[in-house]
């Protein structure tokens, strides 16, 4: 058989597998459906998309040119710019883009059933998310690795650029706050979790000192030690009661908020070698390990989906996890895994400065995002294989369940599910945690992973696996908080440095400390808003987080459309324009509803008005328990509404500014851009090059 014939046979088989899986998912109603149909529908779709669509993008649309030297080759300094093996860079890029987002969003969206989330994650990543990542990486690559903000300023204009700068900073603050909220909700009243996660700090410090003073450079060795210590920390958490530590480690959400804020500040001003770098090694290895383990576990356990394909919450918009109908709220709840604007910051950050050949953009940009999508699909499956009564008991805010087993059972049964106190207590006992109103997605995912791993690998280890999963999520959220605060600090220093030069010096401690304090105060305040909100922090803040992330995607895709038109690639402008149009329709509709809806469960201002009117006549509305909580709801909802409106306005400003350029470019056929002229590459076709002696690495 010729290679071509073999290729046709192989791809036909992949297509048939995918078609069968999709057909089963489309036609199955009211019967047992194995989760593997979703898994293989996703995998076959990714393979086909990578093989055909990304190749079309690489060859026909972007015309990736390996004869052109990349910034890594031209500007190679062994540090910021450096040619890196594409497989290694793929790993770095994936570790940077994949965090808690693809795990949390799909878990929350499972309230609408397994099918809407599955469709959006797979279709979204193929035609929007992976396209955005690949195109932004390519555009930055052609501009010496410039950042998203720089490119918007230079290619669209100062107004758009300034709006983009503000939007990026504000969106990052919301993202850090919501990620922290996920950790707070997972660790509140959980001495086991606090013990295990708390120990990650001394473990990382030990690793940092080991690498600095004892055995410099032995990263694998110290990571091995760190992973063993982490596992011991998880096992040790099971003995906190025996050791008499349970009471002192049972922390409220408010206490955890203070701990996290203090931690965030201290971690962001410590030298990176002491805490950030070693914990990054741990979280990256844990991330990749758990994802592989989950894929194997799913195949071995072959779990059956417990939720409906589409629930009534999708059409009626009255779900307890978050309010709103499938359109537009599914598309902003699941961001990472389908389309995530934050990736554009990574794709225009370190990655483009390390790409050896332009053709590597396909694997790193498109392939990396497909991999993240696979993580999201695994999370959706994990949330869908647990009993749905249990799912809603865990994910409904305490204001709805009363925070008690009896209240949760009554609430869940009122939704039409069957759940008994014994079932809920048994599930809680199995993982040795309280499960009522454990919102945020992390505990639900942990329960799903625990269920899958227990079935797949046997043994009476449900509690271990639950806390293993919590540790896995908390680890990289803490890394994201630390790194995000540091990046925010650099942004503040850079901005203030425009008017006060010395402030931009990142080694000047007063500037570094005060800028860190500003960033931590911003996300700390939003975290506090989420933690104290009687309506439920996740319920209130997650839509803001999702919309913010998708608005960032709108900024990135607007840049892509602008550059396609400026380059005169009008024929292919639909490639970024279609996802941009979809993203703008969903995010602007969601923003409009969150700001202007008269339904108090959706509109922030309607919510504030309802509580204000009640307060003015001396009433207390549930779930607020007193006048002070009424005031909290009014303040929080107003703050959320103002932020929501501001984000949308910033994006409208950027798109309006870009539209002027689009018209000019269309009239002129093309416009000059900041693309660096072609310089012939001296590297061999695979882009391999001997490394410079001292490099950045990670």
């Amino acid at each position, binding site marked *: 058989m010729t290679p071509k014939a073999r290729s046709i046979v192989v791809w036909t088989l992949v297509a048939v597998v995918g078609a069968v899986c999709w057909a089963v998912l489309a036609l199955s109603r009211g019967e047992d459906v194995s989760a593997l149909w979703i898994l293989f529908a996703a995998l076959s779709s990714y393979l086909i998309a990578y093989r055909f669509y990304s190749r079309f993008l690489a060859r026909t649309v972007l015309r990736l040119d390996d004869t052109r030297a990349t910034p890594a080759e031209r500007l190679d300094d062994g540090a910021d710019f450096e040619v890196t093996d594409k497989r290694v860079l793929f790993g770095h890029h994936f570790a940077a883009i994949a965090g808690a987002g693809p795990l949390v969003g799909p878990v929350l969206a499972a309230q609408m059933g397994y099918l809407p989330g599955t469709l959006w994650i797979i279709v979204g990543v193929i035609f929007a998310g992976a396209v955005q990542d690949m195109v932004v990486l390519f555009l930055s690559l052609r501009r010496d690795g410039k950042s998203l903000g720089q490119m918007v300023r230079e290619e669209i204009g100062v107004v758009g650029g300034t709006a983009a700068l503000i939007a990026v900073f504000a969106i990052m603050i919301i993202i850090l706050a919501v990620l922290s909220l996920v950790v707070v909700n997972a660790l509140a009243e959980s001495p086991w979790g606090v013990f295990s996660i708390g120990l990650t700090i001394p473990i990382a410090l030990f690793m940092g000192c080991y*690498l600095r003073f004892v055995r410099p*450079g032995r990263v694998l060795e110290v990571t091995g030690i760190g992973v063993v210590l982490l596992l011991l920390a998880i096992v040790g958490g099971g003995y906190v009661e025996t050791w008499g530590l349970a009471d002192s480690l049972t922390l409220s959400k408010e206490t955890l908020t203070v701990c996290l804020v203090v931690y965030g500040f201290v971690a962001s001003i410590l030298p990176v070698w002491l805490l950030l770098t070693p914990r990054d090694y741990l979280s990256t290895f844990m991330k990749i390990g758990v994802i592989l383990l989950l894929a194997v576990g799913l195949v071995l356990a072959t779990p059956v989906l417990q939720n409906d394909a589409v629930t009534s919450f999708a059409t009626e918009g009255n779900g307890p996890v978050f309010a709103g109908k499938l359109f537009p709220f599914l598309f902003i709840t699941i961001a990472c895994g389908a389309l*995530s604007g934050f990736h554009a910051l990574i794709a225009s950050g370190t990655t483009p400065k390390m790409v050896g050949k332009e053709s590597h953009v396909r694997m790193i940009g498109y392939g990396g995002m497909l991999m993240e999508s696979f993580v999201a699909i695994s999370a959706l499956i994990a949330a869908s294989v647990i009993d749905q009564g249990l799912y809603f008991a865990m994910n409904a805010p305490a204001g709805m369940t009363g925070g008690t087993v009896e209240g949760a059972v009554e609430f869940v049964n009122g939704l039409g599910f069957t759940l008994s106190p014994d079932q809920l207590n048994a599930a809680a006992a199995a993982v040795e945690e309280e499960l009522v109103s454990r919102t945020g997605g992390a505990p639900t995912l942990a329960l799903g992973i625990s269920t899958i791993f227990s079935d797949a690998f046997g043994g009476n280890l449900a509690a271990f696996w639950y806390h293993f999963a919590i540790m896995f999520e908390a680890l990289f959220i803490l890394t*994201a908080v630390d790194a995000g605060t540091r990046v925010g600090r650099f942004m503040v220093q850079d901005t203030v440095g425009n008017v006060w030069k010395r402030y931009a010096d990142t080694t000047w401690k007063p500037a570094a400390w005060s800028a860190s304090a500003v960033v931590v105060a911003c996300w700390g305040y939003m975290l506090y808003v989420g933690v104290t909100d009687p309506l439920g922090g996740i319920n209130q803040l997650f839509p803001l987080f999702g919309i913010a992330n998708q608005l960032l995607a709108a900024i990135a895709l607007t840049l892509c459309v602008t550059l396609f038109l400026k380059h005169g690639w009008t024929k292919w402008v639909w490639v970024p324009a279609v996802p941009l149009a979809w993203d703008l329709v969903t995010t602007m509709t969601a923003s409009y509803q969150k700001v202007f809806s008269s339904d108090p469960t959706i509109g922030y201002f309607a919510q504030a008005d309802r509580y204000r009117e009640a307060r003015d006549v001396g009433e207390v509305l549930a779930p607020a328990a007193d006048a002070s909580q009424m005031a909290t709801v009014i303040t929080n909802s107003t703050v959320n509404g103002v932020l929501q409106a501001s984000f949308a306005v910033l994006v409208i400003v950027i798109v309006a500014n870009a539209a002027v350029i689009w018209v000019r470019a269309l009239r002129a056929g093309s416009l000059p851009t900041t693309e660096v002229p072609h310089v012939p590459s001296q590297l061999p076709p695979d882009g391999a090059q001997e490394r410079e002696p001292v490099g950045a690495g990670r």
Partner: protein
Amino acid sequence: MSALAAVRRYLRDFTGESRWDAYVERCEREGTEPMTRRAFERHRDAHRERSTQGRCC
């Protein structure tokens, strides 16, 4: 090369651990005296300090 060796090599490249070997080889080839491992790694730490990359959500 066995699969295990390939994985180990990838991980050493991924973590940047193999950079030291490349640096020493290069110094040998050029006949220059390499800096100590400790100094080499501190140089890399200093670079990381200046160029933290954000982590996505």
